[in-house]
């Protein structure tokens, strides 16, 4: 377990050459991403539509419960649409950066050369993933909108007062804050994991998009199914599923993908 013995140098990640290479300091490792970036307006359009349909809908159950949420709903509506669109864009673009990452290195014979440098394998993989994701330019705006939504949602819950135990304010706010970034991270991680097994760039990307659509649909369906099934049993608390379940699902799925990736990298560790 050479990679483990060598340890991690997370603090040095920002100056790690592999991380910087992914960001484009040395050459441009992601020409396909650049071509795809030209289509951003076309990608944002369905994102905005999805946002218009999806984001406010997530808040709708609360408006039924309390009139106070109607104000929150209106306040959150536009930033929420933009946040949904940005998340959609990130989820779409992240695999374009990562789905060719490891497979291409292995196929082109550069993987062995990188492994012979003093960089531990786990750091190489982490640097490639995080460096590729850092190339997305949407993070500052995404984090700002996530914060805005989380704060507004937290405030809404506090204003709802007796409807919910105050205990739930923290997980709902945190969940709302984390979910957009987590979704994009998960999509990038999925792309990288798929690229270990599916070496053709196009196939890897297509497989990743297919899995993303399946997973997102499953999470969305599961949230609403649980809401409808438990609203009678749990009362108002049943309405919390759409807020908590997706974040938990993405967290679990990310942990699972990290385990799968580590398994796939086992021969080189």
């Amino acid at each position, binding site marked *: 377990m050479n990679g483990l013995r060598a340890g991690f140098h997370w603090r040095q990640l920002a100056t790690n050459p592999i991380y910087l290479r992914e960001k484009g300091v040395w050459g441009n490792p992601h020409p396909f991403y650049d071509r795809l970036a030209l289509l951003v307006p076309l990608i944002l359009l369905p994102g905005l539509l999805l946002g218009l349909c999806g984001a406010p809908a997530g808040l709708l159950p609360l408006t039924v419960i309390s009139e106070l949420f109607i104000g929150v709903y209106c306040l959150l509506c536009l930033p929420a649409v933009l946040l949904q669109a940005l998340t959609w864009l990130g989820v779409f673009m992240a695999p374009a950066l990562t789905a060719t990452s490891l497979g291409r290195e292995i196929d082109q014979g550069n993987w062995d050369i990188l492994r*012979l440098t003093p960089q531990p394998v786990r750091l190489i993989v982490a640097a490639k993933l995080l460096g590729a994701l850092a190339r997305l330019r949407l993070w500052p705006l995404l984090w700002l909108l996530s914060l805005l939504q989380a704060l507004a949602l937290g405030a809404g819950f506090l204003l709802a007062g007796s409807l919910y135990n105050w205990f739930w304010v923290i997980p709902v706010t945190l969940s709302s804050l984390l979910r957009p970034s987590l979704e994009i991270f998960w999509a990038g991680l999925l792309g990288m994991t798929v690229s270990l097994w599916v070496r053709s760039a196009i196939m890897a990307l297509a497989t990743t998009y297919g899995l993303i659509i399946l997973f997102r649909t499953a999470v969305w369906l599961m949230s609403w199914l649980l809401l409808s099934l438990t609203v009678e049993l749990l009362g108002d608390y049943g309405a919390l599923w759409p807020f908590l379940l997706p974040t938990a699902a993405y967290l679990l799925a990310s942990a699972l993908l990290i385990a799968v990736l580590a398994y796939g990298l086992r021969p080189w560790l």
Partner: protein
Amino acid sequence: MANIIEIEGLTKKYGALTALQELDLLVPEGAVVGFIGPNGAGKTTTMRILTTLLKPTSGTARVAGYSVTESPHEVRRVIGYMPDFFGVYEDMKVWEYLDFFAACYQIPSATRQTMVDDLLALVDLGHKKDEFVESLSRGMKQRLCLARTLAHDPQLLILDEPASGLDPRARIEIRELLRELKNMGKTIFFSSHILSEVADICSSIAILEAGKLIAYGDMADMKRRLRTHRLIQVKFIGEAAPLQAALLAEPQVQAVNQAAELSLPPDMLRFDFAGDDEELSRLLGRLIQQGLPIVTFSEETGNLEDLFLQVTQGIVN
């Protein structure tokens, strides 16, 4: 002189297939060792074990005193490896490629620029510094890759088929570069299918077949050791028959091959002689005394191809 590579009882199995079998090999510092053998003989497997990229099934391999299995990081610091199949980052400029790998080897940015210039000058790519790697010819890419292996100033270079797929000019350039590296004091352990190239630059050769080392040593020694008889070529005037008869009458002449059998010119023949230089000299004297019209009389030195064919049996894993 200390040994930079020490291999003892090295075995590698892939399931039922034994790629390497009880390999023993010592390479002294500063040597240039040509590692030859048929396809599937285990050359790349040996090299990948030495570079820590592959774990042996049994046996030990040490590089500069470090075990490849117990101290892989120390081994990696003293070796420069060029695989037989390698990619170069075609989206980078030539200087960026070397700068990136130098950064991966944790060479401080302050010294990297000078180092990149020096390496490019060494491999004669200084004029291509600001061009994209994708615009380089295959030979240039090979030289760039060789420069990359030198980024951290390793003691030992392990090169797997460094001249494969190159045109004659590019092969000569690589050969000259290896000579220069040899003069710089680097130990070079390289495999090749181009035997003339190995013979030109290496001080020793190791011949591997079916995972076993079947011959290893100094080039001249190996040829001497493996030679059981000498091949003598004679150019003559007129008919071959009298000369042939005279040679066959000599007890130390074992066989006489006529020109047609060996694709030689019609005024030449070759014979196997089992004697030393003095006996050979006396034989020549006797032939001249008999009035045979001999124009030239010379010994075939034998090349690496002959040696290779002599010791290998074409067994492939």
